């Protein structure tokens, strides 16, 4: 089975803190993604990566950055957390070019910024 693991299920941070959300997949997937999920808004793409050290902006990248130093790991960074970044963050991965494009999701990280 594909396993996508997010390091923290629940986090509480203060405004202005730097926040790291870590995601690891164990299936040698090429593609990795970070989405945020908010009530009434569905899932929105923050950043994605098709390869190591490669990143591309999604629909809502402002206030976020990412890092992909190894194929299996994709980190989401909030440089200076703000209350409007309180949300559920979902990491996903997929096999890559030539595959079905199906996404496999981690369990999610619920972040509260006070």
């Amino acid at each position, binding site marked *: 089975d594909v396993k996508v693991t997010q390091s923290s299920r629940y986090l509480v941070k203060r405004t202005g803190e730097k926040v790291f959300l870590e995601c690891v997949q164990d299936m040698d997937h090429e*593609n990795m*993604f970070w*989405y945020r999920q908010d009530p*009434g*808004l*569905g*899932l*929105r*793409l923050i950043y*994605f990566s*098709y390869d190591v050290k490669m990143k591309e902006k*999604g629909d809502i990248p402002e206030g976020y950055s990412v890092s992909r130093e190894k194929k299996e790991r994709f980190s989401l960074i909030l440089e200076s957390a703000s209350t409007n970044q309180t949300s559920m963050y*979902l990491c*996903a991965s*997929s096999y*890559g*070019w030539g595959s*079905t*494009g*199906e*996404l*496999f*999701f*981690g*369990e*999610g990280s619920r972040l509260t910024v006070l």
Partner: protein
Amino acid sequence: ELKVEQNPLFLSMQEGKNYTIYCNYSTTSDRLYWYRQDPGKSLESLFVLLSNGAVKQEGRLMASLDTKARLSTLHITAAVHDLSATYFCAVDMGGSEKLVFGKGTKLTVNP
């Protein structure tokens, strides 16, 4: 810009009844996905539809894709309480392997 619309957004139905959730999208794509999310949980893949006319079935759920109409349906047959969840459709953005999600349909099946 690709837009994905699901309706209804909320659906309350009785056990044993049939119903259909609709997913419309705005630009050409022939890859569509359905996911299920239970409260407090992540998304679980249900169906992957990769061509016009594709139909997949699993238990009481059946999904289909009409790429010409830019429409997918998720049909529920003889609903049971265990099907209560939020269902999302997602569309591949022009073969980019980025998925754009609908807002989800929250299904409640009442005894």
